């Protein structure tokens, strides 16, 4: 059965189903309990599962992450809500130095099936410390997986996989997508980790994106189609380990690459994907790969300033036109 669900409802349903199915799954974080989280991600959980498995915490990011790791290595499957990826800076020691490493360094004695959730991306007026898309750091650290759904089905499908995975997974939720709606199956199969989705087939350009940049890119792709450019849109879904095969397959077909990323440029995901195709499929290249990322600045508050920072369908379309020497009609 499918129903129309929003992204946040789909995420919530995924978590709920896993909590019903597996009693080792529990949720902890600032406000996940009585209030059901900052964006209602866990609305209703407190009543359904009780205070033991739906734990409001203090503002103690390091202990939240560390306690999740401690619980994970002893038989539980914690979901730790760190609220905004911007605040994971306070938790990242436990994520990067413990969660990521314990399985390896213990020579496989220990597993760390923990999910670290956080919202990511910009939202009007959230300004300097609430618009981070700092996943590049986590993608760099061996031992971590990072996912970012772009639609309700994946919001659900990826949380199912993240919870069931035996290693630590950083699950990111895009703040601008929370209320996007789509038909979602009640018995949806988990979205496999490490597998991208072609959201739109095309012949001329491989456009790689994730999160909010996927719908923005699709909009841009529809726009330029009328101008004769056929864009294939690859939704990464898993940022690490990303689906190199899917990207390369598409690139071998189109010979052109544009990575659209809401994160920053330097040592970011855009540079990473470009270097992938260059190192592995240069012979197929018809044109310089490009990236369109957030501009290299702290995120300003005022709307006209904020509007200059992040890619959107308009700037994406403009970039595509520029690649193909088109003039906007």
């Amino acid at each position, binding site marked *: 059965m499918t129903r129309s669900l929003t992204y946040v409802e789909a995420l919530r349903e995924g978590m709920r189903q896993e909590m019903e199915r597996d009693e080792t799954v529990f949720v902890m974080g*600032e406000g996940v309990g009585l209030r059901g989280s900052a964006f209602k991600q866990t609305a209703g959980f407190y009543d359904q599962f009780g205070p033991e498995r739906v734990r409001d915490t203090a503002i103690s990011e390091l202990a939240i992450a560390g306690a999740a790791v401690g619980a994970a290595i002893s038989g539980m499957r914690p979901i730790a809500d760190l609220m905004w990826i911007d605040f994971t800076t306070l938790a990242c020691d436990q994520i990067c130095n413990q969660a990521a490493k314990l399985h390896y360094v213990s020579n496989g004695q220990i597993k760390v099936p923990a999910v670290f959730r956080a919202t990511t991306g910009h939202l009007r007026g959230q300004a300097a410390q609430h618009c981070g898309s700092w996943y590049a750091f986590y993608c760099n650290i061996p031992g971590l997986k990072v996912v970012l759904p772009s639609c309700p089905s994946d919001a659900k499908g990826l949380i199912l996989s993240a919870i069931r995975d035996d290693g630590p997974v950083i699950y990111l939720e895009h703040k601008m997508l929370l209320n996007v709606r789509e038909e979602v199956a009640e018995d949806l199969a988990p979205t496999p980790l490490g597998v991208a989705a072609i959201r739109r087939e095309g012949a001329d350009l491989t456009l790689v994106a994730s999160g909010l940049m996927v719908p923005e890119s699709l909009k841009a792709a529809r726009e330029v189609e009328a101008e004769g450019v056929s864009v294939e849109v690859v939704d990464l879904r898993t940022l690490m380990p990303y689906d190199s095969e899917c990207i390369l397959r598409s690139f071998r077909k189109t010979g052109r690459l544009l990575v659209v990323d809401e994160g920053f440029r330097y040592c970011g995901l855009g540079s990473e994907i470009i270097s992938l195709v260059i190192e592995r499929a240069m012979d197929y290249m018809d044109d310089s790969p490009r990236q369109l990322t957030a501009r290299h600045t702290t995120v*300003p508050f005022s709307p*006209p300033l904020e509007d200059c920072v992040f890619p959107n369908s308009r700037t994406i379309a403009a970039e595509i036109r520029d690649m193909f020497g088109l003039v906007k009609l």
Partner: protein
Amino acid sequence: MNRKTKLALLEMMLRIRKTELRLAEIYRSGDLTGALHLYEGEEAIAAGVCAALNRDDFITSTHRGSGHCVARGMPLRTLIAEVYGKATGCCGGKGGHMHMFDVDAGIMGTTGIVGAGMPLATGLGLSIQLRKTSQVAVAFFSDGASNNGAFHESLNMAAVWKLPVLFVCENNGYATSVSARRSTSVTDIGVRGAGYGIPGVTVDGNRVDRVYQAASEAVRRARAGEGPTLIECQTYRIRGHYEGDDWWEYRDSAEVEEARRRDPIAFWQAALVEDGVLGEKTLDEMNARIDSDIEDAVQFAAASPLPEPEQAFVPAHPQPA
């Protein structure tokens, strides 16, 4: 406390309250963007502490910081313009309500990272000690922040080095929807001072006289080189966590009503009337002054231009050519 101070405390609380309520009103009208965390009901703390400071002292503040900015004398025009995201705001619209700076007023920032102001204030105190001035630094924070590692590390560092810092905990009972009861292992956060060998005092944060007194003593200690003080001011967050947060399963409205009855301004006003310090005329003048300042500031802010888009990249961050 002399008459002038008494009246100044009242006027400052009123100024903060009215500014906050005006911002709430503007917010509801849909003219503002972003999250707005207001300070209604906690005015006695900002007013009481800042009255004990000098112009060249420093403060660091929180996401709920406009009250502290008003108390430190940030011009209402630049404050409100910043909340509007205007070019004339204290940060040219770059910061917004959660990131307000006014170096002239010693406001070293409101911040969006809970707890982050405490290490900064510790560093301001360190700088004061190194520069051998007689300034002090104040970190405002709330109960939620007192459970963060930043609190512990800052208090320990400030205590070891006897830095001139006031750690002012505005215990308003909640951190978003999470009550202090459910997240904070002690009822009186002041007791945590003992863990650092420094005075930890707990005062009624709705009594501006007591706050002022505690802050004055802490300032004296700080300037005398006796080190930091933890001051817990117990109060209550009357409004939602942010404007538009009307989703209140997590608390009883009775609790809020009860707190409203302990209004710090009503209390102080009554006390001053009783004292014979405050007459109707003085109060009317006070209100008129404040109202006109706020109106002026709102007009100014509303009429000010938005920043030009290219300002998004000024100051520029270093990057490859």
